[in-house]
């Protein structure tokens, strides 16, 4: 069991498992509706040319999250593509 890191620190090409949402209220509900809930596998795909937002793949869908949103999602590191 590794320690939890905020999603935006997951480097592109790596995947993790969502363990905790620290967002509250509407923001939290929106994330959950996008499928960002406990034990969901998520993969960091790539950064925007300007560094932010970052595109993530989860449940077969690609969504872009800004770093302030992604920092409210804590994940456990899983693996990195070679």
């Amino acid at each position, binding site marked *: 069991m590794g320690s939890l890191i905020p999603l935006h620190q997951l480097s592109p090409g790596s995947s993790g498992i969502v363990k905790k949402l620290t967002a509250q209220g509407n923001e939290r509900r*929106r994330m959950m509706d996008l499928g960002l809930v406990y034990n969901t596998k998520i993969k960091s795909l790539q950064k*925007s*040319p300007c560094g932010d*937002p970052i595109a993530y793949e989860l449940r*077969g869908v690609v969504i872009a999250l800004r770093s302030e949103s992604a920092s409210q999602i804590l994940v456990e590191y899983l693996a990195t593509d070679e």
Partner: protein
Amino acid sequence: MDFHSKSAIGSVKETSLMYQNCVDGLVIALAGNPNTGKSTIFNSLTGLNQHTGNWPGKTVANAQGRYNHKGNNYNLIDLPGTYSLAANSPEEEIARDFICFGRPQATVVVADATTLERNLNLVLQIMEITDKVVVCVNLLDEAGRKGIHIDLQRLSSLLGVPVIGTSARTGVGLNELQDTIQDVASGKITTKPLKVHYNSLIEDLVSKIEPVISLCIKDKFISRWISLRLLENQDPFLEVVGKYLAKDICSEKDILHTLTQLEQYLVQNNIGKDELCDSMVLEILKNAEEISAATISYAKQSYNQQDRQIDNILTSRLFGIPIMISLLGLILWITIEGANYPSQALTIGLFWFEEKLTDFCLWVNCPNWLHGALVLGVYRTLAWVIAVMLPPMAIFFPLFTILEDLGYLPRVAFNLDNFFKKACAHGKQALTMCMGLGCNAAGVIACRIIDSPRERLIATITNNFVPCNGRFPALIALAMIFIAGSAGQYQSVLAVLTIVALIVLGIVITLTVSKLLSHTILKGMPSSFTLELPPYRKPQIGRIIVRSLYDRTLFVLGRAVMVAAPAGLIIWIMANVFMGDNEISIIQYGANVLDPFARYLGLDGFILIAFILGFPANEIVIPILIMAYMSTGQLIEINSLESLRELFVSHEWTWLTALCTMLFFLNHFPCGTTLLTICKETQSKKWPLVAFIVPTMTGIILCFVVAQTVRLLGWA
């Protein structure tokens, strides 16, 4: 915030009214996630051409259409595309309220076969409100290409409602879908929708509330759903329920009593609402996960590898932005170059008809003033607006729609979002700005794709800082004559650079003003950021041409005509009614009055009045100016740049006059069509007013500073 709730409620009320008026037809709601081809299904069934785009969140106000199937009439309501019914946004609220309180005879939920699991979240939520559900798994062809197989029969038996597979783009499965809708609506098929069971705490609480609710609300289905929602969020929800059921359920003693008890119970046992809410969402998602695991099989593990490879290029650090700029530049170039010929042809045709109208007037002995007002005033202005506006739009919109259909546009938003984030705006504003290059009114309509209220208003108000097609020809002409005039063979290169500089300036102003707005009048408006990057799809050229011509070009042109016709009359009157001792026209008089003020801005009275009279369309500003300078009674054009230069120079133009005129072109009130569109989109009078004042003040300040500085330095 008020405009959103107003428009949301307005549209639901309208639809429920319509539902009551249509005795002859059944009402069918069409729901689904954004970007699932929902609107394609809507179009195919109703034949009504409503725009569909390959970007999430297109339909905001609900579109309606009718169709006939096997002798029965159907009214199809296209609800906004949403991920959920949690009422996080006005769109979700509209969808939720209509499904629940509009009581459609059936609700079709369109799901994307390539991302079924995520779509099931909405399906399960809707099945909690109504049992009359048909699930339409669309984009089966695309899923097939990606090696995704879905066991539709199994899915149907797990969900307990009919499931129809379709490929709406080719029309596959639509007949079966219509048959099934008919059977569900008529009750021939009885459904047994899967009921999501929550944890014992929630079920326990629901069993306490539900009996009391069902005393007031007969529908068994709704009472469970209302009870669940009351657990999440009481007060605002009770208000909504009361409004639609025309029953003040808050004043029912039993309900109040139960709710107070519930509240006490939660406090005593230290249970937070968030906790309840979380476990409900989790439970639904868990169901979705299990169902998809049982019904979806993947032939290839990396089924969307190709999309990722394309993304690696189109959004890469190295190529992302250069590719984007070249694509946009190419579209603009094709538009400006390509519009010349059809524009000339249209002008010739329309002016030939004007001559025939004049002949007709002579033949019927029509008085001079009437011929002048109607033919030289109204008709000529109309003809002018159509001839210069139609061709560029007819070229720009289809080209832009190809990028939209491909799925490229969300990538543009992704590439540029960081700039917009710094300006407190949304990355999708980049798209509404690109659309603004074609036409600001269309750009304002495009702001619908921004789902966050504050960012949507920012994009709406600042769209005018991007020069539209109507302003380009004037900007190019002025740049050619006054800025690049002495550059010899490099004239056109220098002119292009000037235009690019102006666009860049427009972007800088947009970002600055966006930031200012969000810190001032829009402070505190709710804001959020979600951007989905949908799969790339092959564009359908035929459909694009029809849709972009019908939905965008003709639509904008229609509004422009509405504004231009009365304006044509006013312009003619102002140019042909003479007043005072010197018998000067009203235009001349107005120009004299405005002149001292205009001089401070580096302009003159005529230029300023041309901008004011050019309110219906930016295309006619220069023709009005020429008309005013030459004291002719009607709009005229000068085709040669050299004679235009002579005319302007004889009215004391310098490069500073041209520069200030160009700056004022970039920064002044939006045209009448755009303001009318802002009015319709925001359902308010306040925001069009703000959209009028903000760019005008910007223009006045900018021109003043530039003119005074240059004069102070003695450069001109």
